[in-house]
């Protein structure tokens, strides 16, 4: 596309089985006075990503 450059699509994960609750609680990271959630990572996708990388090696 000439006028629109895609940076990322569908970044809000709505897959089935989400909400496992295994990820880090945002207040345990560094904020303590705000509620920043967007910068947290999904534990399942983190594990899957690490697993995939290990397999590739």
């Amino acid at each position, binding site marked *: *596309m*000439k*006028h*629109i*450059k*895609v*940076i*990322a*699509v*569908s*970044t*809000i*994960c*709505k*897959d089935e089985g*989400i*909400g496992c*609750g*295994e*990820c*880090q*609680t*945002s*207040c*345990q*990271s*560094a*904020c*303590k*006075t*705000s*509620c*920043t*959630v*967007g*910068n*947290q*990572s*999904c*534990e399942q*996708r*983190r594990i899957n*990503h690490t697993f995939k990388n290990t397999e590739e090696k």
Partner: protein
Amino acid sequence: MVHTFSCLGSRFALDVESGSVYEIDDLTYRLLDSPLDNTEGEFSRYPKSEIEEAKAEIEKLKKEGVLFTPETLHEPPVYNGIIKAMCLNISHDCNLRCEYCFADTGAYSGRRGNMSLEVAKKAIDFLIEKSGTRRNLEIDFFGGEPTLNYDVVVKTVEYARSIEKERGKNIRFTITTNALWLNDEMIDFFNREMYNVVLSIDGRKDVHNSVRKTKGGKDSYDVIVANALKFRKTRGDKQYYVRGTFTSRNPDFCADVLALNDLGFDRISIEPVVLPEGHPLAIKEEQLPLIKEQYELLAEEYLKRLGTDKQFIFFHYMLDLDGGPCEKKRLVGCSAGNEYVAVSPDGSIFPCHQFDGKPEYKIGNVTDGSFDKTIPVLFAENNLTQKPECLKCFAKYYCSGGCAANSLNMCGDMKKPYKLACELMKKRLECSIAIKAREKNLF
């Protein structure tokens, strides 16, 4: 809902419901802002063919369901009784007397004192018992200053480690310290046992010293920075943050972030102070334009330092567009009062550290097993789906409706957004998106 904005000299669009992010040209920016009337006035300077071309690109994305995605009707999350994260206020005392401390310089409006090992062990037992099938649990040693009760910190970790495997749990510890008493033994222990370490430093020497005095009224910067640097040198790749606060006295906080980076810290968080209107350090509304400029300036500096030996992480510019939190987490946010609670030295349970010392928010006590669900249910209902003002905001899936304590303290209602914090949150999100776009162009 599509939010269009300019940042770092470019224009962007965020499709709120799908979370899709686009860098757009000037024409598309205008088309997205006024989709109905786009043939006359400001559009007359564009060739008709260009307008049609841009419109076709917009239509293509709409058809693919990644632009103008209809609003999602979320099922309100329900209270499930699970607790998986605990802020352990191991000390209600502090060796600093910071001018803006929300915790009343450690005392939390009560008596100064430390948590006993007995209470700490009961808190661990309580957390494990309440965690259900959750495997990953989190415990944050907080205060006050946790190193004032270091011996209990060590023994509490030892106790938790001795039972976590048999209970099928993986406990991640965090400690938040002002680093004034940080010594080699503590550094070694933290590096071994702490998943995350948060060191409180406010940035430039004069800024830090003006608000973070010792109990005896002395400057604390030199000692703290020397200790924190010693820690950094041994930390390797493990998680840590140097975390500071900016106030009305240093709205030019970008200089504080960079000062910390220049010292050798590469994981930094600087947060706006939260204080009632009228407090001399409270951020004033008229300072918002300057603060927003500072966030953009920081974004520029962040990008300049990428790939150099001064590359750093800024907590609020971390935006995971590939593996971010799921929809459910975006609705419940920090889960204060539900999956996340705080425990005070006497074992009292509160919705989070910011409610410690407020008897009307006491949930129970880990020492006698008391636990009243009334407050947790109230907090469970305080999710994004129940905040009409927030549901109209483009940043809703990135702050989840904001901090309950801030809303209560500043607006008198947990469901009402604290506007000043909202403005800053929105600006940080815009900067994060612009950074992601630049990074994509760079690598």
